[in-house]
């Protein structure tokens, strides 16, 4: 009987390891999911800032792709959010700039964050942004309005069957998620964040403040 007790203990221990392992796996699903989304374009995720050399970029003059812009404010986000155009036609490879506007309609300082998403997912790898307000938080004083440039290139390698791409931005209220350090940094630096990218010499022409 003694050996049976040992065997039970050993089985229970192994099973506990499964439990611990699967608990860890549950959390490992988070980076795995991120990886899967990056590979497949699932969820319409776009990449980060794209570095761009005009001299080496081929422009495909033979076709035009329609790029549609959709702006949404998430539930509970009282700001106004719109784009100057509903859509533009671009040649793949051509750099294009579109202005987006936000207005803080409330009586308090708020922080917003735009989250992009693209359909069709087969286009996510071919849509590059050289500058986007979605890379930063937007901190707006009460009643303040801001114009935000977004520059993008549709890759010349875009599959031929994609004739139209829709880029959607959801604007979220992240005031509660924003750290005090970031707000302090904003107060101390007028060039902070999306108002003008400090490293981007072209930003002045777009950011009408």
């Amino acid at each position, binding site marked *: 009987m003694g050996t049976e007790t040992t065997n*039970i203990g050993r089985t229970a221990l192994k099973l506990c390891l*499964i439990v611990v392992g*699967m608990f860890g796996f*549950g*959390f490992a699903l988070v980076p795995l*999911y991120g990886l899967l989304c990056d590979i497949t374009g*699932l969820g319409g995720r776009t990449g980060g800032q794209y570095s761009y050399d005009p001299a080496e970029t081929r422009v495909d003059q033979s076709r035009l792709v329609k790029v549609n812009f959709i702006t949404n404010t998430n539930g509970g986000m009282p700001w106004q959010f719109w784009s100057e155009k509903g859509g533009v036609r671009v040649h793949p490879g051509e750099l294009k700039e579109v202005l987006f506007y936000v207005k803080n309609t409330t009586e308090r300082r708020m922080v917003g964050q735009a989250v992009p998403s693209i359909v069709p997912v087969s286009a996510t790898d071919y849509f590059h942004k050289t500058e986007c307000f979605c890379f930063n938080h937007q901190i707006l004083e009460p009643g303040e309005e801001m114009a935000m440039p977004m520059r993008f290139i549709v890759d010349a390698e875009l599959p031929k069957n994609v004739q139209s791409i829709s880029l959607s931005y*959801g604007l979220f209220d992240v005031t509660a*998620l924003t750290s005090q350090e970031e707000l302090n940094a904003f107060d101390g630096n007028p060039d902070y964040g999306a108002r003008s990218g400090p490293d981007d010499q072209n930003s002045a022409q777009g950011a009408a403040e």
Partner: protein
Amino acid sequence: MSEVIEASHDDHHDHHGPAKGLARWLFTTNHKDIGTLYLWFSFLMLLIGGTLALVVRAELFQPGLQFVAPEFFNQMTTNHGLIMVFGAIMPAFVGLANWLVPMMVGAPDMALPRMNNLSFWILPFAFGMLISTLFMEAGGPNFGWTFYAPLSTTYAPETVTFFIFGVHMMGASSIMGSINIIATILNMRAPGMTLMKMPLFVWTWLITAYLLLAVMPVLAGAVTMMLFDIHFGTSFFNAAGGGDPVMFQHIFWFFGHPEVYIMILPAFGIISAIIPTFARKPLFGYDSMVYATASIAFLSFIVWAHHMFTVGMPLAGQLFFMYSTMLIAVPTGVKVFNWVATMWRGSMTFETPMLFAIAFVVLFTIGGFSGLMLAITPVDYQYHDTYFVVAHFHYVLVPGALFSIIAAVYYWLPKWCGRMYDERLGKLHFWLSFIGVNVTFFPQHFSGLAGMPRRIPDYALQFADFNMVSSIGAFVFGFSQLLLLYIVIKTIRSGQPATDRVWEGAHGLEWTLPSPAPYHSFTEPPVVTEADAHS
């Protein structure tokens, strides 16, 4: 350790029985006592969850808002689902496993008796906490039993933290129960009870326990991430902070799809015990039943995204999840074929457990077919979140899982309490349940196909007739379960004494024990004969 217990028992042969009073139930480590506790607890949860369902059906009896506010309606649907899944079906199967697995494999008790006590006794606290939220000012969970983020995080009532800890405790209970069941089956079988001689109920529970160990920790992870998002400023599921609410759905259904097999595999085991008994033939295709169960368990891990076709995924993903889902029909078809083949040319009699078992085979198959329809991606775009889905999963869970539990109670009750139930009342209960369940859920196929969305307190006028029929059926079905309570109490108090074998065609070690089964059984390992294997 066991030797000490054996020795002390030998000293006083006369009181082998249980302790007296409440202490017996609080401190018991006896698998039969704990099985009984689980079964009564799950019956209580069935009545509570059923009451919430009747609130839903009363509200839906007619279009318009009659009895409850929409916010409260959402709490009713959510808690009905949570209580039935985690409180009624799962603990009932664990209770049956506690009672039956040691007796079926010839073991004296469960492998880890004290943990067994703990895994039961945290359940009342988990559900006490969950149900108490219904009486709080902020109200209970109202985000559906699938608790999709951000409904369950950003927009959740403040009581969501009680829900999260409740789920943690239920998960801990299930995990401990599973460890116990696996340890018992792998280490405590009587000599000669090889794996491929085990009754199918033991086999299905072994596989179910592994499923539970694999997915309950993932569920615990998911609710922990919710907890962090709500209270500690993380953004696992918060798009504003860089998280992704769709990821919640993936993690949830990675747990959720194996979970639905957790609720049906033990049922397959029960039906595989009952049909051979009343067909008086050995089970057809025992080996294929084992392999089919294992195949279903494996497939359950690779089909989860068929719950989320409409959230958007690449075509290749949709095709993969559609085909892998349809593949599940193959092992399931093997099982249904085997049950029918077992009945084929058998000397069948139709006692109450057999009636419930046959109803299981027919109605579960209907639920399986509607599941196949839902597996077809383009069609699912039409059916998604309609009453067709509600009809589908209630067909597999009510006349599926629940009927199998009721069948098991009628089948083994004489062994448990040594008395026969009233066959006439049992049949009455069956017919009321059978008619009630079909009147309730069959019309929901039609209202769903016509486009009625689920989880709504009010609906368009064209769905009025189907909903009225459905509500009438629900009240018939709901109240007929009180008859089950009456029958069980009557059996325990004044049933006719049962024989040891109970059923003419019953095979298996548990039937070699006296009725009622003694408080301590198989303290000496039994001899496993050919007749006792493969029940």
